[in-house]
């Protein structure tokens, strides 16, 4: 009952004209970002971080959340029509979606993707709404040791799930930790690694790093490639799936929703993993597994629902514990801190309007997306025809102005460029940027938590094991670290490009 009262408060906040408008803009940009290959939700949220400073905290979060789940709607469009995933969480949709399009069934494919996304997205928000408050209450019992080990677990899970070498991913995380130490140390006042430069005393900000690693480096990588997109010249007659389609799709949608939500909660999980797992599950339970890849609508309904449900789940660790579960959440965490909102179990109580306002905006956003998506598809298709050569200078310009605007300083722009080059080199040599970002965001929190824990225990590291919850987190993290090393372990790491969530 209390929940109903809260959600009504949330709607009141969200229906304020400025917030409502931001939800709309977020969904629009999100869909656009999802449709366009080469620009993902992490990159675009990073690009908008500087602008978000001018907004209220609620407004900024509504905007960014809208981009995140909006991108999951948009991604399916190009997967189905052009066989190019607009973003990594829609890769599996290409497999059967494009086949359906070739068979003249692009309309129903797009339709079921949108409808499935809506159902799954809404379901996951409902779950979020009911689960978050009790989880936050449990988390109130967490102390510094629990936070330390939870962060270690989060980083470990993320590195476990990356495509390449776990050692490389962990190295990036360590590097990210190091970068977070640059600047004035809060506890001792010592200026670390600032080389006497005033600008570095405040540390290296999240914004230039993220814009460099995801924005600038992405442009460099894309300039090397040559895109040629051939858009399927089908006429899309109707978006409505037939009764047959519905019968086949409702179970995949239900399964996808549940799966996506659970995998979204897992730190390091996320939309990409959910879509892959959903496809695998649908293939497993289907009566005709061999037909997957030839235009089975289940192969579209399941994964598209899963990736949307994952966005709801992904908010749980962030809003209840203050721990981001993936790169996008890490950037949102950074944004919240910049706006003066301390994430953690107290968020729900101290910033009720923020929490419930964002949740209400997600309901509204999903509704907007369902309406927006289908009629605007012809427009998105036209946009795909814009050559990258006309587009990339705008992205770069956006990054330049964005980085500058953080503190009206050219130094931030230069830092961004440096990280752009680093990001380019990292990607060419198969290292992952995501653990670096996560570690950078968590770095200061982590350091404080460790130091407080050691002060509590008077120097003993045993505190991380002797306290049961902390011990459980730590042991799980150690298990994940050890699994790839044991040669006879039958557990295979899922080889999913988690770092590509950008």
């Amino acid at each position: 009952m209390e929940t109903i009262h809260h959600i009504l408060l949330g709607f009141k906040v969200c229906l304020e004209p400025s917030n409502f408008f931001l939800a709309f803009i977020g969904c629009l940009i999100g869909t656009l970002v999802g449709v366009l290959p080469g620009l993902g939700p992490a990159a675009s949220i990073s690009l908008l971080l500087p602008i978000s400073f001018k907004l209220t905290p609620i407004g900024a979060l509504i905007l960014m959340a809208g981009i995140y789940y909006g991108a999951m709607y948009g991604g399916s469009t190009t997967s189905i029509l052009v066989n190019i995933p607009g973003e990594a969480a829609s890769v599996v949709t290409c497999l059967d979606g494009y086949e359906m399009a070739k068979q003249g069934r692009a309309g129903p494919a797009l339709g079921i993707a949108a409808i499935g996304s809506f159902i799954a997205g809404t379901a996951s928000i409902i779950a979020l709404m009911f689960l978050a408050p009790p989880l936050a209450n449990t988390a109130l019992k967490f102390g510094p040791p629990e936070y330390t080990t939870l962060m270690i677990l989060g980083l470990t899970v993320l590195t476990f799930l990356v495509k390449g070498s776990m050692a490389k991913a962990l190295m990036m995380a360590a590097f990210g930790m190091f970068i977070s130490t640059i600047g004035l140390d809060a506890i001792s006042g010592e200026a670390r690694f600032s080389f006497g430069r005033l600008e570095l005393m405040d540390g290296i900000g999240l914004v230039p790093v993220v814009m460099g690693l995801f924005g600038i480096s992405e442009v460099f990588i894309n300039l090397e490639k040559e895109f040629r997109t051939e858009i399927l010249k089908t006429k899309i007659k109707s978006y409505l799936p037939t009764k047959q389609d519905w019968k086949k799709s409702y179970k995949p949608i239900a399964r996808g929703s549940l799966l996506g939500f659970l995998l979204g909660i897992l730190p390091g999980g996320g939309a990409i993993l959910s879509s892959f797992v959903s496809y695998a599950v649908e293939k497993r339970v289907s009566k005709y597994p061999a037909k997957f890849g030839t235009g089975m609508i289940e192969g579209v309904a399941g994964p598209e629902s899963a990736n949307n449900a994952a966005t709801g789940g992904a908010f749980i660790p962030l809003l209840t514990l203050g721990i981001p579960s993936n790169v996008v959440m890490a950037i949102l965490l950074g944004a919240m801190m910049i706006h003066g909102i301390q994430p953690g179990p107290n968020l729900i109580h101290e910033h009720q309007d923020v929490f419930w306002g964002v949740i209400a905006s997600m309901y509204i956003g999903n509704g907007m997306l369902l309406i927006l998506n289908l009629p605007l598809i012809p427009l998105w298709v036209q946009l795909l025809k814009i050559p990258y050569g006309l587009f990339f200078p705008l992205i770069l310009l956006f990054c330049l102005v964005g980085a500058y605007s953080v503190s009206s300083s050219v130094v931030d722009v230069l830092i961004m460029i440096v990280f752009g080059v680093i990001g380019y080199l990292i990607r060419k040599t198969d290292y992952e940027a995501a653990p670096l970002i996560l570690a950078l965001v968590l770095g200061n929190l982590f350091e404080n938590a460790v130091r407080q824990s050691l002060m509590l225990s008077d120097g003993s590291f045993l505190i991380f094991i002797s306290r049961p919850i902390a011990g459980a987190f730590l042991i799980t993290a150690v298990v994940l670290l050890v699994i790839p090393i044991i040669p006879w372990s039958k557990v295979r790491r899922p080889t999913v490009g988690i770092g590509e969530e950008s």
Partner: protein
Amino acid sequence: MNRYDKISSLIWFMVSIGIILGSLNYPFGSFSHPGPAFLPLFSGIVMAVLSLIVFFQAMQRSQKEEKGEPFLTNQWPKLVAALFILIAYSFLLNYMGYPLTTFIFMLFSLKVVEPKRWRTALLESALAVIISYTLFEIILKVHLPKGSLLKIVF
């Protein structure tokens, strides 16, 4: 895996040694009151160990498995040009002011990095300057540089 692992891991190893040495400049404190050197040193050590692991893993792999692509594609001039104009932008911005620097940046990107026709380039550059100036300076009140050099001249 990647054929550049040996080189990249050694470079990262050297970076981590730099970090370790750097962090020794700051007080370590005690285990019950960790000082500022604590996290940088720890990160540096972890990086060093991991980079060595990657190096030895790379040593153990057979040469046949490696990807055959060269590191830089034949598009590398575009990247150098893009990098150049980005850096140039940073330095010119405060001297020449936002509108002029941005126009030059856009024109360079559209003619040198990925060449387009003059008509397209000029049009898009002009539009970009006008729209971005409106968006950032006027609507969002970001306060973009006016240009110290221009103030002297005009």
